[in-house]
């Protein structure tokens, strides 16, 4: 009897004391939204932008696809529309690629790819390198002047604002603003949650406003 009492008490206390973790459903309620900008960029000088209508980039260790296209997936159009609405509301004008836009908006999903698991130091030229499919025809060279200590290795939506107005003579461009939104794959109700996260990315970047 004594042994039973001891065993029960010990089991109770040990289980109480075991290492708990947050409730998974609460954890993924809201996506993490991280934004960065180039302090040297003159955002007031950017008036026009170009953005794809139904295609976003896709980087994955587990798939050979390099793009996601609507209507095969409803995600690209939904995301691109949300970005467009935010840019329009902040005073930017959408133009076609051929109309020499000031900035290009690149959108991609990085899936299961450990591209952000190290600190990215200013002046580091490794990212995104070969990953980038080169939508804009300006090669894959990017100056990435930010420190990012967060580890993204599952599904991240990346939005980049690329300065096309001040590209170098050898056609190099740099990212002047970006947003990382995750995790895409564990999120319940991905489309509205992604749209909210995109709104938040612009909301927390007031230097993009023109009004």
């Amino acid at each position: 009897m004594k042994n039973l009492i001891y065993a029960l008490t010990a089991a109770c206390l040990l289980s109480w004391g075991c290492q708990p973790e947050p409730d998974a459903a609460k954890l993924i309620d809201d996506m993490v939204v991280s934004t960065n900008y180039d302090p040297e960029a003159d955002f007031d000088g950017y008036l026009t932008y170009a953005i794809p209508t139904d295609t976003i980039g896709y980087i994955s260790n587990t798939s050979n696809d390099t793009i996601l296209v609507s209507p095969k997936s409803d995600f690209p159009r939904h995301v691109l529309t949300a970005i467009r609405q935010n840019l329009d509301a902040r005073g930017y004008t959408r133009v076609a690629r051929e109309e020499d836009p000031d900035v290009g908006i690149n959108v991609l999903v990085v899936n299961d790819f450990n591209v952000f698991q190290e600190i990215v130091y200013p002046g580091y030229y490794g990212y995104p390198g070969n990953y980038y499919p080169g939508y804009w025809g300006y090669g894959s060279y990017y100056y990435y002047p930010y420190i990012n200590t967060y580890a993204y290795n599952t599904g991240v939506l990346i939005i980049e604002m690329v300065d096309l107005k001040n590209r170098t003579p050898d056609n190099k461009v740099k990212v002047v603003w970006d947003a990382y939104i995750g995790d895409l794959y564990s999120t319940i109700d991905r489309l509205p949650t992604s749209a909210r996260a995109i709104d938040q990315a612009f909301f927390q970047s007031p230097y993009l406003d023109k009004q």
Partner: protein
Amino acid sequence: MTAYGQEKYFYLTLNGNKPLSNTDWIGDFSLSGGRIGYRGFISPNFSAGLDISWMNFDQYEPVNTQQTGSGAITSDYFHYIYSYSAAVSGQYYFKEADEDRLLPYAGLGLGAKTNEYVLYYNIYEDAERTWGFLARPELGVIYRLTEHGSFGIMAAVHYDYSTNKSEKFGYNNFSSLGFQIGIVAVSLY
């Protein structure tokens, strides 16, 4: 009945604590913990032994936006500390051990503590494990359920101070105030 002062006891207690360090990160009281230990009497008023403790602390930080140099990050956060310690301890009893069923004592434990600080946000987490020296003064009481019985109840309050430092999570040290209540088994062997 062998004299209490010639014996030893084991105990198992529920351990509740309130952090006193960096309470902005975690300041909430937690009942998620326990302690197990052994103490042997080396004289009618003194015992020495070993204590093993574990504690979990957590606190929720609602969604907010923090500036990060040239940018910002928005999320909600779950702050956790997983704490484990081992200490060699000594106790002075204000009555001789076989004098009364109620046995108040004062004690001091010295040992090591390891804290793992974890910040969960969405599917991501940042973590750091630290090690430190532990000092734990304690005031407690043991109450035997029957005069010659082997079972008793233990209750104590204690202050834990450890040198666990984490610059990443803003800790120069870690201290907490706690209480414990549980069972005592006297002279199992």
